[in-house]
Each structure stands twice: as structure tokens, then as C-alpha cells.
């Protein structure tokens, strides 16, 4: 039976109601096979031994199959209409690749407009985004929740920009980025608790530690290419997490570290009743105490950190090392023959990316006041990488769009709890199928000897 399912047509039928019905019928049959075991039965009644039973849910199966049947017919009808429109325009696809992807990609989209637009327009969009970001805490509709959300989105924007150096510019696929984030967070937490250092003193130290880890981990493995590098970095990410879980004397294991000091505004703490002998932020400025003051401060801290990351990337792209990263991404062999040392060049990208993750990590620790290994699981790495790739690798603006879309939008589904990650996963697949090169297309090298030819 399994082999037979491979016989279904690869492309939706061209025309004819009968063909459409047949196609939808096959899709419904497959969905029946998919739904039967997992929709149809639910394992219930846990406990010892024979207490287990199955609960039957035939209505779910019927609903799922009918939905697929109807959906497939609708899709085919829509595609047929779409193809007719295309044919009039004389732009029928060349028959290679998936018709759905082709049809959808042919439609005008925001990303395409942005991509084709003049640099001036892009700068205007970036400027508008920056203005909104700067004014965000001042908007009247922004409550504590939205402010928090802004902090979270900006954290991911910053991490995305940091990872963009590694993945987008240098072309190194890093699936363990969260390890450096964790190093930064634990560095800050431990330094602040044991040595009584403040946030701003710890920040460079945390970045340095993370960069050091990047060099130590990167040195032996950076000569690996592509997917091998991906899997090794994934392994490193997991190793760091396992060590954090098991190294009780230092990290307090799975219980994590709590009571991490909050940042203060040039020595002025954000507290309703400050400790004896200190003046709180609201007292100093003669304001009413509000808990949002601290969050607004955190918001501007992460905004500044993110902008520093962005500025750094924009500038370093113009330095020899930045050029070398992009060249290395395009063609490693050519680079080697031109005397660029691939290992050292990659190592700088890896270390700098790690450093920004370290900054992000310390910020995370100070914002939460509590960290545990649970916050640094693989899924975080996957989300950050998804932001970079979905945005369009190497595109700084794309990272912002993708972070807002992935984090901000799925956050609104929070009430649906378990459906949130379901939608997140499905969204990742959908965006990739719809625009494989990201929302904004892949960034070209900053300079080129010859203009790019017809071949994309």
C-alpha cells in the first residue's frame, strides 16, 4: 500500500472536473491513512499496566478527510483560474518545478517589491522601522505586555543579526548558536552573583567568554563543510546544555540560577522602595513609580545592543575581513588560491557571532532574573536560524521582518498554548515552500567584478 501511494500525480491536474475530483479523492485517501491511527485513536487511562485503553474519535477522522478533500478541490480550482490568467499574460511556467510554488512565486509580493526597489526606498523602510522601534514604549496603546513583547522580538532580532554574520555572511551553517547565548547568560549570572559586578561591567566579559568559546569550539571543526559543520555545532550546543544540567556546583543543575541582579540606570535601581542609602530611578527624576519604567529601560538597552550589532555588521562588510567572509561563502577554493586563510577567516566570523550571542545572553539573564538550562535548548537555535534564513540570508532588514513575523505573530496565539508551536512549525515549512530564498531575497556579495548574469 505504501508503494502505491507514490503513484499519485505530482502536479494538480490541468483541467476537467473529473480529474480534479479524482485528484482530491486520492488526497483524501492519503489523509485517511494519515488520520486513521493518530486522529482515530487516543491513548487514554494511564497508570499501571492494563489500565490503558483507546478512545475512538471517528468524527475527527471524518472531519480531517473532508477538509482535505474540500481543500484540494479549492486549491485546484484556484490554480486553474490562476493558470488561465498567466496564460493570457503569456507567462506560462516552463514546466519545471512545482506548479504551486511557481504560481505563488509569480504573484507580486512585498519582498519582491522591496528587493526590486531602489536603495533609497529600502533606507526609508529601515528608517521608518527604526522610528517605530524608538517610539514604541511611548505609543499610547503599548501596555506592559506589548512592551515585553517588543523586548522579546528585539532580543531575537539581535540574535538573528549576530547569527547572520556566521550564516549569512560567512556561509557557515551553525545549529548550535544557542550554546554561546547560554555561555553569555551564565557568565553574567555567575559573575554578578559571585563577584558583585554590574551589568555593564559584565557585558564585555560575557561577550569575551562567548567569543572564546566560539574559538575553542570552532578551531577543530571549522574545516568541515556544510552539513557536517551543522551537525557538529548542533552536538556542541547539546554538550553545553548537558554540562549546564549536570555541573551542579557551578550551575545549580536543572534548577538554574535565580536572583540575578537587575540592571540599574547609571547606578539608580528600579525599585518601589530602594534599599537604604540609595536613590531609586523614579525618586531621582521625581516620577511616580511604575513597573513599566524598568521594562522600558530594558527595551532601550536591547534596542541599543541590536543597533550596535547591526552597525557593526554593516561596517565590517566593507572591511577586508568582511569581504573575505563573503568571498569564502561564494567560493572557498578560489579564496584559498588567492591566499585567504579559510580557517582563520571562518574563525573570526564564528567568534564575532558568538560574541554577540554572549551579549544577548547577558541581557536575557538580567531581564529574566532567572536562568536554567531549559531556556537554551535546540529549539532556540532552530528559531534563530529560521529567522535568519526566512528573512533571506545576509539581509539585515529580512531578519527584522522574520523576527516580527515569527515571534510577534505566534505570540498572539499564546492563548492556544500547544497550537502555537504547531503553527510555528507549519509556518516555517510554508514560508520556505513559498519563498525558498527568504522573505527578502538572498543578499548578493557587496562588490562584484562583473555584473550578475541572467543565471540567478
Amino acid at each position, binding site marked *: 500500500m*505504501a*508503494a502505491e*501511494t*507514490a503513484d499519485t500525480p*505530482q502536479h494538480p491536474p490541468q483541467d476537467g472536473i473529473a480529474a480534479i475530483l479524482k485528484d482530491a479523492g486520492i488526497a483524501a485517501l*492519503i489523509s485517511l*491513512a*494519515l488520520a486513521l*491511527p*493518530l*486522529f482515530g*485513536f*487516543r*491513548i487514554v487511562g494511564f497508570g499501571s*499496566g*492494563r489500565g*490503558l*485503553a*483507546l478512545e475512538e474519535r471517528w468524527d475527527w477522522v471524518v472531519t480531517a478527510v473532508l477538509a482535505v478533500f474540500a481543500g484540494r478541490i479549492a486549491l485546484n480550482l484556484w490554480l486553474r483560474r490562476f493558470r488561465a490568467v498567466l496564460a493570457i499574460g503569456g507567462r506560462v511556467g516552463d514546466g*519545471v*518545478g*512545482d506548479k504551486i*510554488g511557481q504560481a505563488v512565486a509569480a504573484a507580486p509580493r512585498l519582498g519582491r517589491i522591496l528587493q526590486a526597489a531602489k536603495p533609497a526606498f529600502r533606507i526609508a523602510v529601515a528608517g521608518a522601522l527604526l522610528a517605530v522601534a524608538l517610539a514604541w514604549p511611548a505609543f499610547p496603546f503599548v501596555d506592559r505586555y506589548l512592551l515585553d513583547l517588543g523586548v522579546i522580538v528585539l532580543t531575537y532580532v539581535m540574535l538573528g543579526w549576530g547569527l547572520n554574520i556566521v*550564516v549569512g555572511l560567512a556561509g557557515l*551553517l551553525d545549529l548550535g548558536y544557542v550554546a554561546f547565548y547560554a555561555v553569555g547568560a551564565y557568565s553574567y549570572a555567575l559573575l554578578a552573583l559571585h563577584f558583585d559586578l554590574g551589568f555593564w561591567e559584565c557585558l564585555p566579559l560575557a561577550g569575551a567568554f562567548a567569543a572564546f568559546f566560539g574559538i575553542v569550539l570552532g578551531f577543530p571543526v571549522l*574545516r*568541515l563543510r556544510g*552539513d*557536517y559543520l*551543522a*551537525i*557538529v555545532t548542533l552536538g*556542541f550546543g*547539546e*554538550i553545553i546544555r*548537558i*554540562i549546564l*544540567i*549536570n555541573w551542579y556546583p557551578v550551575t545549580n543543575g536543572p534548577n538554574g540560577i535565580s536572583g540575578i541582579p537587575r540592571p540599574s540606570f547609571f547606578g539608580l535601581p528600579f525599585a518601589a522602595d530602594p534599599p537604604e542609602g540609595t536613590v531609586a530611578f523614579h525618586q531621582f527624576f521625581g516620577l511616580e513609580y511604575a513597573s513599566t519604567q524598568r521594562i522600558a529601560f530594558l527595551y532601550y538597552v536591547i534596542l541599543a545592543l541590536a543597533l550596535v550589532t547591526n552597525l557593526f555588521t554593516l561596517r565590517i562588510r566593507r572591511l577586508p575581513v568582511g569581504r573575505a567572509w563573503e568571498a569564502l561563502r561564494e567560493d572557498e*577554493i578560489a579564496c584559498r588560491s588567492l591566499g585567504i586563510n579559510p580557517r582563520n577567516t571562518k574563525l573570526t566570523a564564528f567568534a564575532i557571532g558568538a560574541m554577540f550571542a554572549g551579549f544577548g545572553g547577558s541581557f536575557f539573564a538580567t531581564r529574566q532574573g532567572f536562568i536554567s538550562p531549559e531556556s537554551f535548548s*535546540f529549539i532556540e537555535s*532552530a528559531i534563530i*536560524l*529560521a529567522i535568519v*534564513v*526566512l528573512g533571506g*540570508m545576509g539581509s539585515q532588514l529580512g531578519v527584522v521582518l522574520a523576527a516580527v513575523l515569527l515571534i510577534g505573530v505566534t505570540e498572539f496565539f499564546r492563548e492556544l498554548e*500547544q*497550537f502555537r*508551536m*504547531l503553527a*510555528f*512549525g507549519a509556518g*516555517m*515549512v510554508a514560508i*520556505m*515552500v513559498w519563498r*525558498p*530564498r527568504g522573505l527578502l531575497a*538572498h543578499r548578493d556579495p557587496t562588490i562584484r567584478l562583473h555584473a550578475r548574469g541572467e543565471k540567478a
Partner: protein
Amino acid sequence: MEYFLQQLINGVTLGAIYGLIAIGYTMVYGIIGMINFAHGEIFMIGAFISFIAFLLLGALGITFVPLALLLVLLLAMVFTSVYGWTVERLAYRPLRGSFRLAPLISAIGMSIFLQNYVQVLQGARVKPLQPVVTGGFQMFKGDGFAVSFSYLQIVIILVTVVLMASFSLLIGRTALGRAQRACEQDRVMTALLGIDVDRTISTTFVMGAALAAVAGLMFMLYYGVIDFYIGFLAGIKAFTAAVLGGIGSLPGAMLGGLLIGLIETFWSAYFSIEYKDVAAYSILVLVLIFRPTGLLGKPEIEKV
């Protein structure tokens, strides 16, 4: 000595399960050069379908263990294959010929989706199953420690050996296997020779999913508990096994699975159980540094 022998048996059993999953990774990587990140989730779905099939057979009154096992095996393989096929059709086929990272991101998304899909449908709680296959041999009794070789372990090792042997034959001797190996070498040329490349790739996914389903069934029988999260760790270890053995190589996947199973078991037995996963990853890193193509992989020739 007895302790060592016992760990050897346990390690081989675990290695058999990893090896079965690793074959799915290595075949897909060989043919389209992508890490099928969702493969671990296919394994997890296989375990859930096996679990449900067992309960269903129990409710139908089929309690003769060998028959029940065989039926569950078939049911799990068939239904899990449909999942494998659908994942390829929806998430990977539209991206064929796209740039390198796109299928990987799509696969990670699919993995997140499937995990939460099962969590939503079947609940997040751990599901324990009463042992189905019980009993076993006792060898070298004495000194208060006996080496036991349970029937379940024998079943797992036997089924794995049979499956791997038949798979090697399938790849090596049949037209389908020839088509797969041809696609691995040159997809355009294969298509020119009249082979339906898309269908061959689909079949590869179906075969990988069927083997993952068997691994899922065995995992469930061996450990007795499953939850929606088992796919992640097992998947990563199986991928490690595939890389260790040399990705794209079928015997390599089996060897790698066996090695990862043994390393993990011996490390937990003699050193520390907390760091057993670290041991597996460290071995992976060491192998990649000193033998980047894996133990049985062919060296990649760089063409300019």
C-alpha cells in the same frame, strides 16, 4: 567479565535500534544530499502507531504474542510510510533544486510541527506499556551476577539483522535499488535515462520511514515508555551514527549505529550516565576531525 558481556548485549540491542533509524538518514542524504531533520519525528510517530496498534489488537482479543508482534510491525510500517511519503511531498519536493539551506529549514519546521501534532493529538504525558515480550536466557550464573539475554533483545537483534540483510539485497540487486544508486550519482542523467527521479526519491523516503517505524516499535518494546519528545534525541544520535559510519553508505549506517549504541552503553556502565550523550557527540567530533568522510564513506573529490 559478566558485567562487560551484559553491557555488550545491551549495547548491541541499542545499536540495532539506532542503526535502523540511521539507514533512513543515510539513504535520504545519499540521494538528495539533505539532512532529513524530521526523520526522528517519523520514528516517534512509528512508536505511537505501534503503541496504538498494540492496544487495538489487545481490544480485538489477539493476544498470541508472535502474531500480534507481526501484525503491529506491518501496521506500523504501512501507516508510518504514509507519513514519510507525505512529509517528502509537502515539505521537500517543492524545494528540490532550491538553495542548500531551504530544505534543511523546512525539515526543522516539519520536525517542530510533527512533535506538536502528536502532542496535541495524543497528549503530552508519558505513555507506559506493560512488557509484551518477557523472559530470556540466563548465562554464566554465579557470583551473584548473571548475564541475561532477554527474548526481547533476541527479537530486536534478529529482526534488525533480517531487515538490514534484505535492504542490502534490495539496494544491491533490484531495479529499484539500481535506480536509487543512479539518482545518488547523477539525478539529471538518471532522468534522461527514463527513470522517474521524483518517484525514486519518494520510495526512498517510504523505505526510510518503514525502517524508522520498526525502530519505533522496538524502542517502545525495549523501554516500555514513549512520549512525543523521543524523536529528537534518537534522531540526533541516529544521524550521528550515519555520519560516523560515513553518510550515504548503508553498511556504514549499521556500523555507526552499532558503535553509537556500544559507546553509549559502555560509557553509562563504566563512567557516568549523565554524560552519556556527551560521549556520543565527542566521538562524532573526533571522527569528523580525523576522518571527515566517516568510517566507511567514500572520500569526496573536490572539483573546481
